[in-house]
């Protein structure tokens, strides 16, 4: 396998991993605060569409990314209002978000672009100068846009915020035991609303990355379950951002392998590639479950104990 192919492989892996990573970062923050948002598909799609439309009209990728984040945050405000403030079921509202996002973006696309099916040029890559010389990685990185690096920066900030600041500590407490946080004067609902909006914005950014960088266009339903995968990545990462980053990269490599295999003589249907991550997730969850029952109860549970439970409980 020559260098050019390896480089292409890395580029493909990164293109697949970044949207997932972005969304997973936000969902991790949300889950740590106690909110399980299964509406990520819808949030990603509105981010993808909004950014696509805006970039198409304005020519500015930066503006596109901003609008993608805003769109995602705006739709996620429904989760914040209905599930966090009004204490409705997070699962039900999440399904609603997926429906709303899917329906809205499909409708809008159909009304505006169905006939023309426009495409966007790839965004300007960030020049990395001498680093270009590194074999395989160099050329791969040299094609990456600003958004790529900003994603990793965001990951770093999110990690710092969650584990090394006061607000981050309180946010995690909201997911561990909200009554205890309230007893010391913490504002559980406010923290959760903030986490949800942040999650919405990053999901929007994830969709934006998918549309503007990875695909170069918008197609209705283009996420194909990526939003749900992000939930799993967040769960498996257990609040540790580096783990989240690692898992997202593994996913990217997976997808790239699948695509690469398709180019060889091995007959690998697209469906198998689509199916593979979900099968892997099921196996991993089963393995974790098996390990947990064999090993007895863990002191630190994998998921925040207060996840998906409304606060205050008031039954």
């Amino acid at each position, binding site marked *: 396998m020559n260098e050019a192919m390896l480089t292409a492989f890395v580029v493909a892996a990164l293109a697949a991993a970044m949207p997932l990573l972005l969304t997973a970062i936000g969902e991790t923050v949300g889950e740590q605060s106690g909110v399980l948002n299964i509406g990520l598909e819808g949030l990603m799609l509105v981010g993808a569409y909004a950014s696509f439309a805006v970039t198409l009209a304005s020519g500015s990728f930066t503006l596109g990314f901003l609008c993608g984040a805003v769109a995602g945050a705006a739709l996620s405000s429904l989760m914040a209002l209905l599930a966090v403030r009004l204490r409705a079921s997070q699962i*039900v509202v999440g399904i609603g978000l997926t429906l709303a996002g899917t329906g809205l973006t499909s409708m809008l696309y159909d009304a505006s672009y169905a006939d023309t099916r426009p495409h966007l040029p790839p965004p300007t890559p960030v020049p990395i100068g001498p680093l270009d010389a590194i074999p395989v990685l160099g050329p791969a990185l040299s094609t990456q846009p600003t958004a790529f690096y900003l994603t990793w920066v965001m990951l770093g900030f999110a990690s710092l915020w969650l584990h090394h600041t006061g607000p981050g500590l309180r946010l995690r407490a909201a997911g561990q035991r909200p009554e205890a946080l309230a007893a010391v004067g913490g504002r559980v609902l406010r923290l959760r609303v903030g986490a949800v909006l942040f999650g919405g914005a990053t999901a929007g950014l994830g969709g934006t990355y998918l549309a503007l960088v990875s695909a170069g266009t918008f197609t209705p339903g283009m996420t194909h379950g990526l939003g749900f995968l992000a939930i799993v990545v967040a769960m498996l990462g257990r609040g540790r951002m580096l783990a989240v980053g690692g898992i997202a990269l593994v996913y990217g490599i997976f997808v790239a392998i699948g695509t690469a295999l398709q180019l060889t003589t091995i007959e690998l249907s697209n469906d198998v590639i689509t199916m593979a991550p979900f099968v892997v997730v099921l196996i991993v969850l089963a393995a974790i479950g098996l390990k947990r029952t064999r090993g007895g109860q863990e002191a630190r549970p994998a998921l925040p104990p207060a996840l998906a439970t409304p606060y205050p409980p008031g039954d």
Partner: protein
Amino acid sequence: MSAPARALDVLARTVAPLVLAILGSAVVLLALGANPWAFYADVLRFSLTGEGWQQTLTAMAPLLLISLGLIVSFRAQLWNLGYGGTYLLSAAVVAGVAPAVFAFLPYGAATLLLLVLAAGVGLILALIPASLKAWFGTNEVITSLMTSFVAASLANLLVKGPFQDPSVSVPQTRVLDLEFMLAYVPGTRVHLGVVLAFALVILMHVMLTRSSFGTRIDVLGLNPRAAAHAGIHVPRMTVAVFVVSGALIGLAGAIDMLGLWGYMRTDWNPGYGDKILPFVFLARLNPLGSVPLVGVYAVLATGGTLAAQRAGISVDLLTLLVALVLFFMVIVEYLAARHSVGRSYLPRGIFKAVRA
């Protein structure tokens, strides 16, 4: 609150979200340059008049079955979100093997076998999230979703692969001969699958509201710890509920294949489950109560598809409308609960009762 006042209250709370969602969608229609009056008039016209009502009834068959599947599982507070893939895979299997089965068995036996097969596919798929939850306590929201995606891909693989109709180039199964499809109710073009669906609604209603199994489901759904304490075998019940749910949803796939389509394409997903879910909750997880609400959705879907075409609007407006129903339902319940005696009538899982 007296009983009649209560009934009126529930009725109002059920109708209000529908009305609001329709109004909301009207606004969207206006924004897209269409005429809401004309649109909704078309919806009613296409779904109820002429041949329309028969199409609406036909559409209700899979919807009712999927609703039942959701109701059984949600009443136990178990989130079986695998309905999408389950429907597709069982439809693919039925569509794929039907021609062969009908070649070897008499009509009645073949039909029965295929129905059982479809239920079986749903049952087996449901075992995945069910076992993981029962044995390991793994969150069933995620596992059922993952299973759904796997099943959907499997359906595609089957249709493109072993079940592919060799005589055509597009990826689809062989079209079932008309004589092997489900017979119509005499004098109509409504196939017997609709009758089966209604029969199952009644059966499930009795089972869930009157039988000991139904009571156990209620207890499990309301307080799993008390259920265990009361001697209910929670893991066994979990599996039982999932399996019944999956079987019903699988049956929906068979009904559509044998009664309506006769064949299956790839990359086709009607997405029934997602769209009927808010209506299931609006029916307060009551099988009989779900019938009129499923009917409302069937009207919107049947009439809406044609009306949207006529208005030049994407049919995804319906998806948006359904989302609006869901959101308005949450809001209406919240507001109503605050003003009245204090409890939401929606089952736990939508709302914890708001303290008066």
